Structure formats: C-alpha cells, structure tokens
C-alpha cells in the first residue's frame, strides 16, 4: 500500500475547496447553534438557495457573476426570514423539524420537472463558472510539493474559499466578543431570563439565523464554483448533518472550531477513503467483502458513529470544555 498517496489525498482534501465549503457552512452553524442555541438542521437548504441563486442568475439571465453572488445572498437572507419569522417563537426542536422540512422541500422543488425551466431539473447544470475561472491568476499549471499538488484552478477556488472562511471567522470573532455576542450566548443559556432583562430575544435569534444562513449561502456558491456543477441532490439532509459533524468535531461555540473541524473532517474522511480503496484494490480486503463502491457509504457510517460517540461522551465536541444547552433543554430538565 502507498501510504504517501493516502497522506497526499488526505492533505489535498483538508486544504481543498471542499473543506472550505464545510468550514463556511459550519462557521454559520456555529453562530446559530454554538452561540445562539438554534437547532438549524436545514443548512443544506441555505447552501442550495445560495448556489442556485448565483448559478441561475448567471446562466438563465446572463447576469454577471457579482450580481449572481448578490442574488444568492439575497436568497439566503429571504430563506432565513421565511423560516425564522414564524418558527423562532416555537420550541427549539420544532425549529429543527421545520428547517429540515424546508430544506427537503427546496431540494424536491428544484429537482421537479415543473421547475426545470428555471432549475434544470434533476441533472442540474454544468460549466457555468468560466467568469470565475477567467479571474484565476495561477494559470493552468500544477502547484505543490512532490505527490501533493493542486491544479491552478483548484488552487484559485481553494484560495477564494479559505479567504471567505477567514472573513466569516473574523466576523464571528468580532460579533461574539461584543455585547451582541453576550446577548446571544445568554439566549442559548436561558431565553426567558434574557427577555426579562429587556432584550428582544426573537430579533436576536432571527439575526443569528440570518447571518449563519448567509454564510451557508456563500458556502453553497463556493461548492457550485468548485465543482463547476450544481444538482439538487447535492443538497440532501445529509449535507446538513455533516455540517453538524464538522462543528462538533471542531468544538461548539469556539470561534475557530469549525475551521479545525472542517480540516480534521476532510483529513479523516479522505484518509479513510483512500486507505479503504487501496486495501480493496490491492486485495488486503477481499472484494467479496467490500467493493470500492461501498467506500462512500462506509465513510458516512463512520460519520454516524462519530456523531453518536461525541454526543455520548463529549457533547461539546472534541475540543470543547462544556456541553451545549438551549432553553428548550433547560425547560425539559425542569419538567423531568
């Protein structure tokens, strides 16, 4: 087996655009769940409207890329209002169900035949990002050290992705260290106390949901740009769950947690993927037991196991010292 290749695969994934996409989505989720305690299980929906908002305006209406990006952001903001205005008055677990349902509705609508004239249906659309890659300053060559390398295009999207991550992290850091951040952290602890102290908690929750949703919309755009393709079925509920896994891996309620989480997540995912594939192709694992097509599902099963173990042993995530708590939890404990 070629362990150097495994390592190169893992590192490439950990610094690549995919990891940046998950880091962005998880930074947004951190603001929502980690700081404000909002259980948003529809991060995939925000990514979808971001990605499609940009793509559709560019391909269907010939808009320039920057306008597409604005449309994507607007879509993310509108979705946050649509979801938040009615559901943020409800119990936390209702928000979870409403967000997951909304994300699923969006995916089903976008893949439907009826919407195909706008959304391109099940198969989506490809090769729409030439505007973006025309800006690539790295050219077509390959960059890297030894076995680890990225093409110029990959390097370009990875760079943009990570710069956006840096911006999102900086914004989060500024916000959570301000009095605004104190209010949303307090809301996660006990919303009623915060209301009793004269804060409009509903408005704060809506702000946190919208900000996190905007970051996820940006993540959706980076994802679409990186793969030069967008299909509705990229944005399944599982995508939202991975965002949670990334956040938990890195540490809930810590500014850099999502970044650490995304890098670790992809490092582990790509390494296990590469290892398993090599083990199968080289015959270490008989292909009667597993075939290479089983590698994808096994990776995801590992994500599932990781989620269970985290929640069982360290609910705040790998790097956290405390457990996340919401007002709903506190109430449930009181009732228990």
């Amino acid at each position, binding site marked *: 087996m070629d362990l150097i290749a495994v390592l190169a695969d893992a590192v490439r994934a950990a610094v690549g655009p995919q990891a940046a996409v998950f880091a962005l989505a998880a930074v947004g989720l951190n603001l929502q769940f980690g700081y404000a305690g909002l259980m948003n299980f529809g991060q995939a929906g925000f990514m979808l409207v971001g990605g499609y908002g940009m793509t559709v305006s560019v391909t269907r209406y010939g808009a320039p890329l920057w306008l597409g990006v604005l449309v994507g952001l607007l879509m993310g903001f509108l979705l946050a209002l649509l979801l938040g205005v009615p559901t943020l008055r409800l119990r936390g677990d209702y928000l979870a169900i409403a967000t997951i349902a909304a994300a699923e509705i969006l995916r089903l609508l976008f893949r439907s035949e009826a919407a195909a004239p706008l959304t391109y249906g099940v198969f989506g659309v490809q090769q729409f990002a030439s505007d973006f890659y025309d800006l690539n300053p790295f050219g077509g060559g390959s960059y890297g050290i030894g076995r680890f390398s990225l093409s110029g295009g990959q390097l370009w999207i990875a760079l943009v992705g990570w710069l956006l991550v840096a911006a999102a992290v900086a*914004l989060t850091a500024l916000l959570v260290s301000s009095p605004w951040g104190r209010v949303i*952290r307090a809301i996660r*602890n006990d919303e009623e106390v915060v209301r*009793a102290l004269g804060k409009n908690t509903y408005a704060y929750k809506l702000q946190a949901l919208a900000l996190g949703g905007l970051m996820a919309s940006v993540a959706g755009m980076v994802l679409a740009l990186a793969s030069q393709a967008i299909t509705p079925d990229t944005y399944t509920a599982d995508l939202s769950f991975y965002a949670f896994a990334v956040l938990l891996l890195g540490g809930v309620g810590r500014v850099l947690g999502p970044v650490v989480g995304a890098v670790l997540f992809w490092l582990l995912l790509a390494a296990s993927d590469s290892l398993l594939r090599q083990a199968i192709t080289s015959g270490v694992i008989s292909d009667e037991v597993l075939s290479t097509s089983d590698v994808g599902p096994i990776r995801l099963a590992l994500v599932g196991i990781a989620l269970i173990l985290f929640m069982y042993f360290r609910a705040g995530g790998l790097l956290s010292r405390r457990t996340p708590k919401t007002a709903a939890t506190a109430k449930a404990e009181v009732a228990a």
Partner: protein
Amino acid sequence: MTSSPSGHETTRPILSAQGVQRRFGGLTAVDVDEFAVRGGTITALIGPNGAGKSTFFNVLTGFDRADAGAWQLEGREVTGLPAYRLARQGMVRTFQLTRSLADLTLEENVLLAAPGQRGEGIGGALFGRRSWRRQEADNTERARELLARFGLEQMAGQPAGVLSGGQRKLLEMARALMSEPRLLLLDEPMAGVNPRLVETLLDHIRQVRAEGTTILFVEHDMDVVADISDDVVCMAFGRVLATGTPAEVMRDPEVIDAYLGSDEADDDDPAHLAGKGRQP
C-alpha cells in the same frame, strides 16, 4: 383605586391592574378585579399554592398572555406588551427557580442587564466599537460594585454555573438591579433558601426600597411577609381575597380559611413537588 390600606399614606400606584383574567381550558387560573402596588413600597403577593400568584405574575410581566384585563405602569398603559418591552419600561422580574446564565461569568451575567448598551445591536457591535467599549467600561465598574454589594466580587470572573443555589439568588438580584428597575418583581425570592440567607436577602430587599425602587414579591410563607412588607395582597383560587397591611390581612378570616390545610411547610411534601413538575 381602592387598594390603599388604612393607616398608610396614599401614594400614586406604580402598577395597577383591572379585570385581569387567565384561563386554561375550563379552569380560570387568574381572575383579579383590582390590583395595585403603591410606589416606594414593598408589596407582598401571598396565597396558598395553586392560588394563581405565579400565573398572575407571569401575565403582568408579559411571560403569559391574559384573556382579559388591563394594567398600567406609572400610569402608562402596558397591557399585553411583550416581556422585553415591559423590562425596558422599568419593570424587571426574577424567577422562582433561579436562572443564572451558567456559561456566562458572573460579571457577564450582570453586564447583560445594563440598559442602553449600543454594542448590543449588530451594527453597533461591528462599527461602534469605540463607543460601546466606553460604555462597557462604565458598566463594568457598576457591575463590580453590585457584585461586591452582594458579596460575589471574588467570583466575578467565574462562570455562574459554579454558584450555589443561594448565591444564584443573590446574583439574580444583582443582575436585576443592574437594569435600574423602578419596579422590581421577585418571584418567591426566599424559596429553597436556607434561613440564614433569608435574613440577608430581606436586608437587601429593604435596602433596594430605601434606594427608591418599588418591590412586588410573591411568597407563600406568611411569616417572611409579616415583618418586611408595607402592603400585602392575598390571592386564593385565582382571586384577590384581601388587601391591606400585613396585620390586617393575616387577621382576615377568609385568608385564614384559605391557608388552613395548606400549611407553609408543604415544600417537603414530594407529591407537591411532583405535582408542580419541578426539581427542588
């Protein structure tokens, strides 16, 4: 207003309510015709368990909705205002089960209550850093003073989760005072507190009154009420049974009837705890 008891100077009520009702299905939990709190007093709202005191309290503070009725704060109509707006108008409450914000430090707990912090808006937080930092410095000074007053200054930097039950009561008072209330509403401040701390709490409450803040507190232990309150309002079955000085109310035969069979020590009864669905 008919509620000013004999033997007391009549002051303008800081809080008055008329015809407040709250029903749950067929049960009328609260049905209060007249209620008033005189400014500058300590008023106790007493009554046996299940009398509807806490529900009434929740309705007045915007934590529950009323099915009927109206109430005014310092003459301004505040009926049905959301809790946060009532708090901004100077009517601040505490909770029966002390609720500290466990992940925040003691200092953050108190700072949170500071009114008018510009950095609490998203724009202010990002673009008005210098401005909110200055405010924050002033607020921190006041927060320290308050913590010191309640004997918590040593722990200012620790998360509130480490506090004992009694300390949380003190922190909650400090936090409420930080918001500069004109009317402080305390929901069973003495519940589950050891007798030694009760004295301390009572002293603090008297001192708050001395500083000009009106206090309304819910309590079901009559003995506690007797030596601290100026006025007492007794509720049973959702209605106001009697209003007056502590001595007057405690002589009232209706009040004595209401308290018969539901003695003050029933906190130790497990069925009572379970019935309330609450942890001790």
